[in-house]
């Protein structure tokens, strides 16, 4: 990997020699190192099965949910090793958005936004709650659409609205990074472009790391791009550089649609 074209000062996240194996010795992510820029959108691309989701999920320690998953290397978030943080703190700092919108079906729109507080038993005053809900929903441009139906179930919304609700749920914790795993792949083009616009706007206040299958999406909204192949980080750099002048043959082949 060519490190020389990414020289990121004060990264929000440093990935150091990260390897993840689902079964012993069989690595889905192999020795990946990268610094992630603050207040920027970083896209992770690569063919199916190359380890994008696996890497992303390592960042907020989702792998701990399952036994037998081995994680090596270190992840430094805001200067602190993530394994030294209590999970709740880490997951407040690194919000996650999944491929399929997954609002809690039993909760209202309002409660979905503050689900992180509610489910963890973090008490907020009514006024604070209202503020968090309004701010988060405004951040994802959902406020005007739902402000009169806040107490309806979140699952009544359209797919795109549900996904924005899920982003709002992550934003309610005021995270450092937002990790998104193909957040638009289950959505139609209109809903997709809304979310893309949103992400570009959100990078003013947050750092965004997003897995995407969609190269034109990466080209449109990301500042930095990673290309992964068979678990390795093949190339990492400014999106513009990577799309105009890929350094690695495999990146070039992927970007020109030869495989993937």
């Amino acid at each position, binding site marked *: 990997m060519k490190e020389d074209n990414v020289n990121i000062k004060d990264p929000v996240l440093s990935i150091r020699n990260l390897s993840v194996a689902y079964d012993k010795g069989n690595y889905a992510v192999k020795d990946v190192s990268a610094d992630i820029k603050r207040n920027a959108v970083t896209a992770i691309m690569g063919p199916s099965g190359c380890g994008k989701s696996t890497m992303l999920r390592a960042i907020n320690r*989702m792998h701990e949910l399952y036994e037998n998953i081995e994680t090596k290397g270190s992840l430094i978030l805001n200067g602190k090793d993530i394994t030294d943080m209590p999970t*709740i703190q*880490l997951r407040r700092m690194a919000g996650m958005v999944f491929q*399929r919108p997954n609002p809690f079906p039993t909760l209202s729109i309002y409660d979905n936004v503050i689900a992180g507080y509610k*489910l963890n038993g973090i008490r907020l005053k009514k006024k604070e709650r209202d503020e968090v809900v309004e701010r988060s929903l405004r951040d994802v441009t959902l406020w005007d659409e739902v402000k009169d139906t806040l107490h309806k179930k979140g699952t009544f919304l359209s797919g795109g609205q549900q996904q924005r609700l899920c982003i709002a749920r992550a934003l309610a914790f005021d995270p450092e990074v937002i990790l998104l795993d193909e957040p638009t792949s289950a959505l139609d083009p209109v809903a997709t472009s809304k979310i893309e616009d949103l992400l570009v706007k959100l990078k003013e206040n947050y750092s965004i790391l997003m897995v995407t299958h969609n190269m034109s999406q990466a080209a449109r909204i990301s500042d930095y791009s990673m290309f992964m192949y068979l678990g390795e980080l093949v190339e990492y750099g400014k999106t513009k550089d990577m799309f105009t002048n890929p350094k690695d043959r495999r990146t070039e082949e992927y970007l020109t649609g030869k495989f993937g």
Partner: protein
Amino acid sequence: MPLVSSSLNEWGNMNSAAKITVANLSRRTLKDKLFKGLVLFMSLITISPIVLIIYKLVEKGYRQISLDFIIKTPPNTFEAMTALSNGELIPGGIANGITGTLLMVVLASVIAIPVGVITGIYLYENPGKLLANLTRNISDILQGVPSIVLGLIAYMWIVKPITSGFSALAGSVSLSIMMLPMIVRSTEETLKMIPESIKEAAVALGVPYYKVILRVLIPTGFSGLLTGILLGISRILGETAPLMLTALGSSVINLDITKPTSAIPLLIWEFYNDPNMVDLIWSSSLLLMGMVLTLNLVSKRIAARTK
């Protein structure tokens, strides 16, 4: 010219093809009709017992149903005989049976629901573990154990050593063992149906695992759990055999769980053994059937609403 003849030929071919299809079609419609008729007939055979049962129960039982039937205890043989010979309705009711059934069902639920739900959660959480597989299999076997055997067990566990005599507690224990496998199964199946993504959403918010189960999975699957519990209750509501060996029966209303207690099915059995009380069999059965049907309908409703 050749062009015309060839197209004529084709026309002819098409015609014969069409004929064959028509013949096939009528044969097929005939088969179709036969099959549909058969299916309809079989369905009628399936539903006829329940229709006939309900009809019979209503016909023979409705006259005895009144407020007294619910708030009074059964008459003695002499009272019943007198009423019968005067051509009157049998006086009294089955209040002791109703309260006994409610008492034992509630107590059985109090025992079986927490144990069953927690076991179900354990099975869901540890699908491959040896102990989990063992538990699941044993729970399935338990479901097949004849209820009279469960009565015997409760007799040995409770009646002799604990309440030193027949008791509602012993009855409840035998009933709770009957309910248990149904609750375990329905809990596990319900939790399995909840998408993994919902669980991950909670985990990604930093929610500790036990809270994910208590505050996300159980509320999300609540109606499924409730359906399982209601079906379990409707299953034990009419159980007679284990109660004969445990609760025994009582001619008065009893709410002391250490004392012998009546139940609706026990009363039906008692009425059966007394020629003067036969009319009460029908009304008691009607009430019991009504309770079971209501529970079944309610649980169906709940299950349907969540789909």
